[in-house]
């Protein structure tokens, strides 16, 4: 329950950053995620100097791109993860990262509050499921997300309940497609 409240709170932080350019909200978000992004990058093989620099860039991106965050399709932690991952591919692998064509927001496509809440609950459930996995399996998944497994080493079966969260996101996408028509 604590985790769910915190996630809701982070969404409000991003909203305040986007609409009010609220530096206090940004400072709180920074305090929580900045050290985690840096740790994530160091576990991915960046040295401390590079990890510090990239973590600052990732957090600056959040400030500048807050309007791109869509709480009916991702949690704040997920969004930050994708920004940090792309920064890692760019800085450590020196590769371009092809991204899918985005589905842009129309003014009529404000996220539905019920969907936002339901996605947070599913996300929290996924987090608990990850924590409850047998040590060895959890370690393998973490290794993959730190960029430390080749794609041939990634198993098909993760043991994580991805189905509910997937249908939740699919629902949000359908709504978005409908609004764009």
């Amino acid at each position, binding site marked *: 329950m604590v985790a769910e409240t915190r996630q809701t709170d982070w969404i409000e932080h991003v909203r305040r950053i986007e609409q009010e350019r609220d530096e206090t909200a940004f400072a709180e978000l920074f305090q929580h995620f900045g050290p*985690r992004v840096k*740790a994530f990058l160091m576990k991915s093989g960046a040295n401390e100097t590079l990890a510090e620099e990239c973590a*600052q860039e990732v957090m600056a991106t959040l400030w500048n791109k807050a309007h791109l965050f869509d709480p009916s399709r991702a949690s704040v932690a997920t969004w930050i*993860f994708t920004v940090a991952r792309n920064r890692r591919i760019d800085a450590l692998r020196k590769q371009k990262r*092809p991204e899918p064509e985005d589905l842009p927001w129309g003014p009529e496509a404000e996220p539905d509050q019920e969907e936002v809440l339901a996605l947070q609950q599913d996300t929290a459930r996924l987090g608990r499921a990850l924590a409850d996995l047998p040590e060895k399996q959890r370690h393998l*998944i973490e290794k993959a997300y730190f*960029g430390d497994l080749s794609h*041939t080493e*990634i198993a098909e079966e993760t043991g*994580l309940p991805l189905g509910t969260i997937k249908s939740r996101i699919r629902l949000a996408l359908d709504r978005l497609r409908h609004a764009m028509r």
Partner: protein
Amino acid sequence: MDTIKHHLTESLLMGYSSGNLPEAFNLVVAAHISMCDDCRARLASYDAVGGAVLDDTAPACLAADSFEQTLARIKGEAPGRPTISRPAPGVLPAPLREYVGGDVDAIRWRPVGGGVKQAVLPTSQDATARLLRIPAGAAVPDHGHRGLELTLVLQGAFHDETDHFGRGDVEVAGEELHHTPTAETGEDCICLAATDAPLRFRALIPRLVQPFLGI
């Protein structure tokens, strides 16, 4: 959109989400997802795992002036709110257009024999990505695979020993598959193909030209 039958595998989606794929495979994944909401939602669920892993990572120590430096970065950058423009509808999805420098008419085709044309795309060396144009009714020489081959249909359709593949479908071929992809009649078939190891051709001629083709 709803007619796509052949989708990305779980390990490709997780590999893309976690950032473990070669650039050429990333390109196929990004292009397929641009056309397929089902895989888009599956990918988002893998990204959510990444979010959970990040949130669960034991925090590292930031530099003492980390926050001030970040604020300085923000003030140094122009406040970004670019208007999001939707690309005009075309044959190539947006991520591919970035590599080509435009839509189909911007592709610089080179003949590779049998009426087939190709254009190799600039990606990192660990795998190669190429666009293929197979004339209606023509076939790519039969071949096996040493590694993984992903083929995404962008226009027209082809069939091989396993099934029929139309626009948006992706064929994932591994070492166990030996096939002869053949374009359906009616329209030239344009595909994006990515491989992480050279193909194995059965016939003598393709084997001789292989060093030149680079497949």
